[in-house]
């Protein structure tokens, strides 16, 4: 009975793991150095901050119009820090790549492959391959192209150009193929990350009326397509869970290989 109760609690808490790959602006008017925060957390509630190991890969794929796609490794810019959530601190990373990395026009997709995280509550590992897309100057470049990641959410709308009240569409893929009825979690980045202070803002922007609103759990459709509404300005995270299948193992335990995509909604203002 106690085990069952604990089990219920554990799965509730575990539902909302989200790998952040955060930068303040998604659509830059002009080229600038772009700071990034890599934090493994529960962003809606600024909940438990998990310890990140050294990432397996961290790079940016950029393209100006239909010019050749370019990959820039960013591992050398990783700076280990402690990131503070509401009630916890965890190992995280910052990165301040120089302006020269992002001085061309076009789309920049940041990709983070974190090291697998052992989730004791569920006796399994979690690895969330995460993409955050930024555009410089309004010139597009390959935002709708898959990057060939083992698991990946491929956008059907520009992740950096969304009005509040609109919808965002994407296709969940594993090894390049759509995943029908994939299990999806969505969270609003409710507590603004304060990059240089290494913490989330204490106050959230909204309050969930009930637990089901903290992490929105939905399913992809039969074609692996996801459509989400964007009712509030800011960053929204989309996570497709366990795309590697039940048999995927890491160090003898199950590995949940997840794909995360962050998108930003912007208010229509004067």
């Amino acid at each position, binding site marked *: 009975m106690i085990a069952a109760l604990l089990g219920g609690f554990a799965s509730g808490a575990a539902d909302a793991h989200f790998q952040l790959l955060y930068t303040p602006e998604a659509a830059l008017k*002009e*080229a600038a150095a772009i700071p990034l925060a890599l934090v493994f957390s529960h962003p809606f509630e600024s909940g438990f901050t998990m310890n990140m190991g050294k990432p397996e890969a961290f790079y940016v794929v950029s393209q*100006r*119009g239909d010019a050749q796609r370019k990959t820039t490794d960013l591992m050398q810019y990783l700076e280990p820090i402690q990131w503070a959530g509401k009630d916890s601190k965890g190992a995280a990373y910052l990165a301040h790549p120089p302006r020269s990395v992002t*001085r*061309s026009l076009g789309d920049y997709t940041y990709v983070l492959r974190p090291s697998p995280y052992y989730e004791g509550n569920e006796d399994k590992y979690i690895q969330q391959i995460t993409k955050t897309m930024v555009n410089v*100057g309004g010139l*597009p470049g390959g935002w709708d192209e898959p990057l060939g990641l083992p698991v990946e959410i491929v956008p059907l709308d520009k992740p950096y150009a969304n009005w509040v009240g609109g919808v965002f569409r994407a296709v969940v893929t594993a090894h390049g193929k759509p995943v029908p009825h994939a299990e999806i979690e969505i969270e609003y980045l409710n507590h603004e990350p304060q990059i240089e202070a290494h913490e989330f803002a204490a106050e959230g922007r909204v309050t969930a009326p009930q637990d089901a609103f903290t992490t929105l759990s939905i399913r992809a459709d039969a074609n692996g397509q996801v459509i989400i509404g964007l009712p509030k300005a800011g960053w929204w995270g989309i996570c497709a869970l366990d795309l590697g299948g039940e048999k995927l193992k890491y160090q003898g335990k199950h590995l949940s290989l997840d794909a995360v995509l962050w998108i930003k909604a912007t208010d229509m203002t004067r």
Partner: protein
Amino acid sequence: MKSQTLALLLAPLALAAAAVADAHNAICSCFENDNGTITCEGGFSDGGKAAGVPLRVFDQAGKVLVDGAMGKDSTFTFAKPKVAFRVEFNAGEGHIVTIDGRDIEK
């Protein structure tokens, strides 16, 4: 391969693009290279190329210092003038982007 085929099909449409240019914006951005040259990149907000679009560099009096055009890769590189200058990317009426040389960074 598929995109090449598409490009061939769309090539005749490119001529008409200028006429429907209102649906997108001209974009130009420049940066200074380590060797003292300046590279300008151009394009359109719909992803359209800027190949062949004139790019001129003027001094403060309006004299043309460099009379260039965007290459096939939608970029143009020139030696940084020793005097104050501005860059003009001219994709036709309503599609002119002007950049002050003082705003061009590395």
